């Protein structure tokens, strides 16, 4: 019988079917960070349970940490949470990449870097952006803290089988459009709940043409379409990424050859059935910018701020509230929106290729007066690579701040925050009210769009600058 990529991985991981029809699913890796794990470890302790497979559990610290330097956490509550993770990892025998480690970084950036993210495996983490790893043909999804505890104790999860949803991007992206625009476009089309209950599979010529890092940007924001997981079939691009670089957990030599032979069997079979399908012409995708307080409130940069009642999937009241919060009026051109802050980074767009693309624009240019720009690498390894290439000097010469690795202003759980009323072009993933700081206004976009906004002080249709 023809099977989808998702079904092949799912079927290989079912330990048994449970009486209620759900599956007991085996988890190959659990990634852990400081925010969603302390209560899970405490639960184990109270019940006298151990971590079943500490060797399959990997922890790092990313949400709370400052990015102006790498090691000192001044906020005592943040510090306590990070120290709790250190103690828990020691007590339960879990590998931890701490602030002194050369491989520390945002959990979804370091998983692939370390070779922990492999096709055909299952990965979970107490973090909704775990969908990132799906770019490798991995079944990866976010879970809550109770489920984190469940995986720690049993290496399994009780899961109801989700439905499947194939999104095919035909054609090729035009210059100026990126994989960030591909995923924002999809969210605009199906809404932030359009993927709820589904695992997405992204396919088509425009997806095959993308690099691994660009694919991760798409997988990452699957959750913003409501889908817990979004996958891309592994191919030569995937195998080359895994085979290259310093990835201590990736197979090498004969083991890699054997793995690749297996990974080649994973793509969805011809004729495999999906519960839902959608086709998007990638060549028609314009650079996207969000104008509201939900990632589905997004439009072409060449368009205007929409009017209440004119946005599919959102009520007039939703749009009125969003525009009031964002301080925007219907009919205003997107390119007339001025920004005072630019944030380049996060698990969505904090990888080396993202920084290279931003640097290519900022090279020899200055950011606008009144704009504060921050470039935050997604990991210590990305930071080192960027500095080896001299990107840091380009950012600093342009007037941007060059930071240490962390989640930073994506969720503002650390000192990097917007002040009320500040308006930010952000390469991150959520434009919710208060997400980047109470009263802060977020416009999601690609690194290229953010870099040009930094230079000109407002959004520009970057296709006109190419």
């Amino acid at each position, binding site marked *: 019988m023809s099977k989808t990529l998702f079904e092949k991985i799912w079927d290989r991981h079912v330990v048994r079917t*449970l009486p209620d029809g759900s599956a007991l699913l085996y988890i190959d890796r659990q990634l852990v960070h400081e925010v969603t794990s302390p209560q899970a470890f405490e639960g184990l302790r109270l019940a006298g349970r151990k971590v079943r497979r500490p060797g399959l559990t990997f922890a790092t610290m990313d949400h709370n940490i400052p990015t102006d330097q790498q090691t000192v956490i001044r906020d005592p509550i943040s510090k306590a949470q990070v120290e709790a993770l250190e103690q828990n990892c020691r007590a339960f025998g879990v590998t931890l990449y701490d602030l002194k480690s050369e491989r520390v970084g945002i959990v979804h950036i370091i998983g692939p870097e370390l070779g922990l993210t492999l096709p055909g495996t299952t990965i979970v983490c107490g973090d909704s952006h775990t969908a990132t790893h799906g770019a490798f043909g991995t079944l990866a999804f976010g879970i809550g803290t109770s489920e984190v505890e469940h995986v720690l104790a049993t290496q399994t999860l009780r899961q109801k089988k989700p439905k499947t949803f194939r999104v095919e991007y035909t054609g090729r992206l035009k210059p100026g459009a990126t994989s960030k625009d591909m995923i924002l476009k999809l969210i605009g089309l199906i809404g932030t709940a359009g993927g709820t209950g589904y695992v997405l599979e992204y396919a088509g010529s425009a997806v095959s043409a993308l690099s691994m890092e660009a694919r991760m940007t798409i997988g990452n924001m699957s959750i913003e379409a409501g889908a817990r997981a979004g996958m891309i079939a592994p191919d030569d691009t995937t195998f080359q990424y895994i085979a290259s670089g310093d990835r201590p957990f990736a197979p090498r030599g004969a083991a890699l050859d054997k793995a690749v032979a297996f990974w080649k069997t994973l793509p969805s079979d011809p004729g495999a059935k999906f519960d839902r399908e959608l086709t998007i012409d990638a060549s028609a995708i314009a650079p996207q910018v969000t104008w509201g307080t939900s990632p589905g409130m997004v439009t072409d940069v060449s368009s205007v701020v929409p009017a209440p009642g004119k946005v599919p999937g959102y009520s007039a009241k939703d749009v009125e509230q969003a525009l009031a919060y964002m301080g925007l009026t219907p009919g205003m051109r997107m390119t007339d929106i001025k920004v005072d802050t630019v944030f380049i980074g996060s698990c969505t767009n904090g990888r080396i290729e993202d920084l290279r693309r931003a640097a290519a624009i900022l090279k020899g240019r200055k950011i606008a007066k009144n704009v504060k720009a921050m470039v935050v690498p997604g990991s210590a390894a990305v930071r080192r690579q960027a500095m080896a290439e001299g990107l840091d000097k380009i950012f600093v010469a342009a007037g941007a701040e060059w930071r240490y690795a962390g989640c930073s202003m994506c969720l503002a759980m650390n000192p990097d925050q917007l002040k009320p009323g500040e308006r930010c072009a952000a390469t991150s993933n959520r434009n919710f009210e208060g997400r980047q700081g109470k009263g802060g206004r977020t416009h999601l976009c690609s690194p290229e769009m953010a870099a040009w906004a930094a230079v000109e002080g407002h959004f520009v249709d970057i296709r006109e600058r190419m």
Partner: protein
Amino acid sequence: MKAFSTHRGIVAPLDNANVDTDQIIPKQFLKSIKRTGFGEALFFDWRYLPDGRPNPEFPPNRPEFKGASILVTRNNFGCGSSREHAVWAVMQYGFRVVIAPWRQQGDARVPAFADIFRNNCVQNGLLTVELSEAEVEEIFQMVGRFPGLEATVDLDEQRVVLHVQEEISFHFQIDPGVKEHLRRGLDAIGLTLQHEADIATFEKSHDVQMAR
């Protein structure tokens, strides 16, 4: 986990769609390493004025909704971050039930609650009730006309009853596995560990590196 069978309480309205978990509990409260103390932080940015006093404009703050334990809201509640703190906050404030509408989008039925949030609710014994948009609209109308009205949510019968003069009732669907889990207040880890032998057998032939 506390078992759920039937619950009667005051219904509080929150007339917003796509309420995300950042809004349910902002990040500054996620630094705690405990499972308690989140009730005061629920809907923090909407619920309090800048000086820290309760915002009288925020509907659940109105006196007639004091002590409410059933929240009625709009579609896609709990979207965004996976933070289980959101569920802890909703429950520690005093809610036992959240009601929201599913929506028809083309051929597809879009669930009322975001996936991870809904799973987290099941883990903690918070009942999520999905009704049609028209039914939820009727509840909003009734709460508007009779602020402070009470409802009974009966999980066994899968029914919501509004206690107005002539009782209005709505039937809801629920996954049978979820229903059983909530009714019995089950400990998921304890249940799974009954299959320890199956897990051990599976591990013997399962390669976590290539997962074949």
